[in-house]
């Protein structure tokens, strides 16, 4: 009874066992509700599960999965490097307008730029990668600049009293001091990369990918396959989220010390 009261109490911290139990119960309830309300156009969890089993056994599934994963990781890797360079340079006044412009590029739609990118790139892979990078970088830069803006002025003053020049202060406070938050930014923005991957994969379907699978299934109204593919994308997203979070805590143990648990 007490536990039941706790789960509705604001700011109450639950122990790991109770929290896991709560998640399992809520997931089961959602699945039951879905199963009971389904049956029409929307496939039931049982059908989605069957479609999922079918998808993973398809001979082209590993290739599609590999194509999406490599494109995402490559896109994320290059994007974070570009975003880091732009963000760190934004500390130097000369580069501030560039960083501010990149942030505003969040409002540009990729659809309008496909023709331009098609002219600029040499093949389908490059086109997809370029669009992915162009789509992700503004979001990365926005998050990274927010991290930099939130650095307390006293940290820079501490550097001054420790006789560091401005480049050393940049290194200590912004680059090394906030490296853990770069991982957090990557983790949070990974969802955007996943969101875009399925869109850009449709631009050049020869390489395959999970996005291509989705487009084809949608075209033939195979909604159970669509939902099955979405489940795979969802699981992969959660997996990456967990991996990046774990690597962050492993590389930067101090990040665990100030978290409310």
């Amino acid at each position: 009874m007490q536990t039941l009261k706790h789960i509705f109490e604001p700011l109450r911290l639950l122990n790991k066992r109770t929290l896991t139990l709560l998640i399992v119960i809520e997931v089961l309830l959602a699945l039951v509700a879905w199963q009971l309300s389904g049956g029409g156009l929307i496939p039931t969890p049982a059908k989605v599960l069957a479609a999922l089993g079918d998808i993973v056994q398809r001979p082209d599934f590993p290739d599609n999965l590999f194509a999406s994963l490599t494109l995402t990781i490559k896109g994320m890797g290059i994007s974070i490097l570009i975003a880091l360079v732009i963000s760190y340079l934004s500390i130097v006044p000369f580069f501030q307008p560039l960083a501010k412009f990149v942030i505003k590029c969040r409002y540009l739609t990729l659809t309008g730029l496909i023709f331009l990118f098609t002219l600029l790139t040499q093949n389908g892979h490059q086109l997809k990668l370029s669009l992915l990078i162009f789509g992700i970088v503004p979001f990365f830069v926005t998050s990274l600049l927010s991290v930099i803006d939130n650095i307390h002025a006293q940290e820079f003053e501490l550097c001054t009293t420790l006789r560091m020049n401005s480049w050393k202060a940049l290194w200590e406070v912004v680059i090394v001091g906030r490296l853990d938050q770069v991982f957090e930014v990557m983790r949070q923005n990974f969802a955007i990369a996943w969101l875009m991957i399925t869109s850009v994969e449709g631009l050049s379907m020869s390489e395959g990918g999970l996005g291509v699978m989705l487009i084809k299934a949608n075209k033939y109204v195979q909604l159970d396959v669509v939902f099955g593919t979405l489940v795979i994308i969802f699981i992969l997203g959660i997996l990456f989220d967990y991996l990046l979070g774990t690597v962050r805590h492993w590389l930067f143990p101090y990040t665990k010390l100030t978290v409310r648990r």
Partner: protein
Amino acid sequence: MNTYSKHEVLLSAENIQLQYGEKVVLRDVNFRIQDIRRHGINQGQVVSLIGRSGIGKTQLFRILSGLLRPGAGEVRIDEDQHVVKPGEVGIVPQNYILFNHRTIYQNLKIGLDSAQLNLSEAETKSTIAEYAATFELSEHLKKYPAQLSGGQRQRASIIQQVLTGNKFILLDEPFSGLDVLMIDRVMELLLKISTLSEHNTLIIVSHDIENAAAISDMVWVLGAEEGKPGATIVKEYDLCQMGLAWKPEIRSDMRFVELLTDIRKHL
């Protein structure tokens, strides 16, 4: 018998003014800190700048450290009385800022490295170990700042500044948020640091009159004068001259109690 003599000026503030738009924050702030010498001891200087909250203490703190340029006037330091530059005066802010991504050892090492003594790895380690032992931080060297209590963080922050080789260290509200026992330990620590070297000078900026005055040899009261805008030094107490400096049991001395009453009148 507290025989002492005062010698060259180590730090001086001349006609410091600070104004934001129409608002005058500081006006005509003048003071001097002289080297105090006592026989058989490296007697550093401990001075307190007392004032009510919001009077402009922190602004003066930043000006003294060279982090903020005053609208007029100069802060000069050392025997040659050159204008203070950022990095020549150490600061220990109220919230004890350390690099949270570095262990305490690494934080202290950054302080020591900035002294540019070209120490070997072994010498660096032994110097840090020595200071950590003196100030009871040995068992915390491998920890991160977030794992330390407020008092331990404060000690680490003070030692980091001491290791830079700065003779002048400014402390913003060093007794704030500490329990009674911890305050006593901080006072011991500050007195210990002040006697590490003849020219070591600690400037305590605080609104805690009793604790600040108890370890000081000089107290300045920063306050407002009637009819005049901005804060200035309204009263100076030379505790050496008054025979109230360097006395461990000072709190039980009636003259000290009277001094506190008098300081309160000027706030």
